[in-house]
């Protein structure tokens, strides 16, 4: 059974109601790396928020492992573009926050068991800090003392340390410079392979989507006042050879940019 099932999902905002997403049907299997591609304002982030459970859809539903989730919880990790770390916590505290709050509440934090467990949690966090390519001494730094790329590295570690089944990333690398961005793309591919987590990666950058995803979903609107629909849903051959990338990018940009609906939905599985 699919891990994420999106059934007849429609979302509309504002008065008068302006449709953002119309009749989205998708099913995503465990372990897929799905890139959601589309132009700015086409509802990519809205789709992600629906899967997160941060907002409720107007119609339809999102099932995670067959269950509807009314609010964000531990099954889905989240890495946004901005504000991805708690500014009041050090790198180490940011990473240990998840395990601490999911295992202890405000009262059990006062027990000696918490102090013992915290040592293990810290050790695991330090291992993660090494894995994402940060130095041990960075553990005591605050987010504002780190570069944008480093911050996103910590944010990924923070999301993965609680072992979520799904990782939702919203333009997570869009504010980074090209060099850093490339490094981050390698890192997330590596972590995806190692952990087997299901990744849903929202981006407006076609190159990035083709490089990262094993499946690409293009969202596009038929007209300016219509909601976005799935214009294309394709698998990326694995391994994707460098020389194939420009061809795929051309295809995809054509699909999301030109007259929608005429482009056949095809899969190259």
């Amino acid at each position, binding site marked *: 059974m699919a891990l994420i099932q999106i059934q007849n999902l429609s979302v509309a905002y504002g008065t008068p109601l302006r449709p953002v997403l119309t009749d989205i049907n998708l099913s995503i299997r465990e372990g897929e790396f799905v890139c959601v591609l589309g132009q700015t304002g086409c509802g990519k982030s809205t789709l992600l928020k629906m899967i997160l459970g941060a907002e409720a859809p107007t119609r339809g539903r999102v099932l995670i492992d067959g269950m509807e989730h009314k609010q*964000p919880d*531990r099954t889905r*990790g989240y890495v946004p573009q901005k*504000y991805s770390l708690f500014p009041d916590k050090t790198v180490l505290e940011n990473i240990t926050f998840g395990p601490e*709050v*999911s295992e202890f509440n405000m009262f059990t934090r006062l027990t000696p068991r918490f102090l013992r467990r915290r040592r293990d949690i810290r050790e695991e966090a330090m291992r993660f800090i090494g894995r994402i390519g940060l130095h041990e001494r960075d553990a005591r730094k605050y987010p504002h003392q780190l570069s944008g790329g480093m911050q996103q590295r910590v944010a990924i570690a923070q999301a993965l340390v609680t072992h979520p089944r799904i990782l939702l990333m919203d333009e997570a690398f869009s504010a980074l410079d090209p060099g850093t961005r490339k490094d981050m793309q390698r890192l997330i591919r590596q972590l995806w392979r190692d952990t087997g987590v299901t990744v849903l990666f929202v981006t407006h950058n076609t190159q990035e989507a083709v490089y990262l995803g094993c499946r690409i979903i293009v969202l596009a609107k038929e007209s300016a006042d219509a909601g976005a629909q799935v214009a294309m849903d394709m698998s990326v051959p694995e391994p994707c050879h460098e020389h194939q990338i420009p061809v795929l990018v051309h295809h995809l940009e054509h699909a999301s940019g030109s007259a929608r609906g005429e482009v056949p939905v095809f899969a190259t599985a």
Partner: protein
Amino acid sequence: MSVSLQLVHAKPNRLTTIVLSWVLFATGIALYFDIAQKRHRENPEDRIMPTIAQMFHGMTNATTNPAEDDEALAENASLRQRFLASMLWKDTVATSRRFTYSILLLIPAVLLGLHMGLFPYVGVFFLRFILFFDKIVALSLLPILFIVFGIDELSKIMLIVIGVTPTIILDTFNLTRGVPNELVVKAFTLGASDFDVAYRVVMRQILPRVLNSIRLNLKAVMLFLFAGEMIASTDGLAFRIALLRRHMGMDVIVPYVLWVALLLFLVDFGMRILNRKLHPWFQEA
């Protein structure tokens, strides 16, 4: 014109900055004593603009003589004992006590604002009422407070609470709403409960701004405190200032006013240092 004077782009050097920033202080002090001297040459009994000698004499009395005439001290009392029994010390203690109570009562206000901002039901329950309450001119309630709570401590503290808490509640509410939604969502995805989000994520992040907001409202706290003390009190710094007005005791009033300003400055300064020590991550923007 090839050489033009830089205005917006001007960069005063260190010395100029120091000199310019003290000019108004120096002129003010010089002008005061110049006029005071002239008045005293014309009329040695002048009470409106006391000289340094008079103010020194007045303050010596205020700091070494017992506050009440009937509390005579032993002849050989030490300077410390004399100071602890003095008018200035007793007034300062009385005012500080009321001030501390008022500041402590702002803690529930901060918590209420936090819960209003984070929990929609709490928000809708309180928001409209507090917006209305905020518009009531607190000083206009003073007579009602005296009637209801009597003229002792409670009415004075209630005045401060009514005058300042709505501002603090609404400010905390807005700060809470200003916390990026991403962080709240993120905390939930990490397994946090509603109360973890409230106290370990949102409250910790708004706390430095809340402290700054309280610092800005210190003047309002003092304003209401002084209004209460001047109208109905038997001790306190403002009570003394109001009392001395009847005797034209400018030799004590002027130092008292400066003393109050100094105390308030120190409290504000202390809170600023505390804020910086408690929240090293906070970037003032």
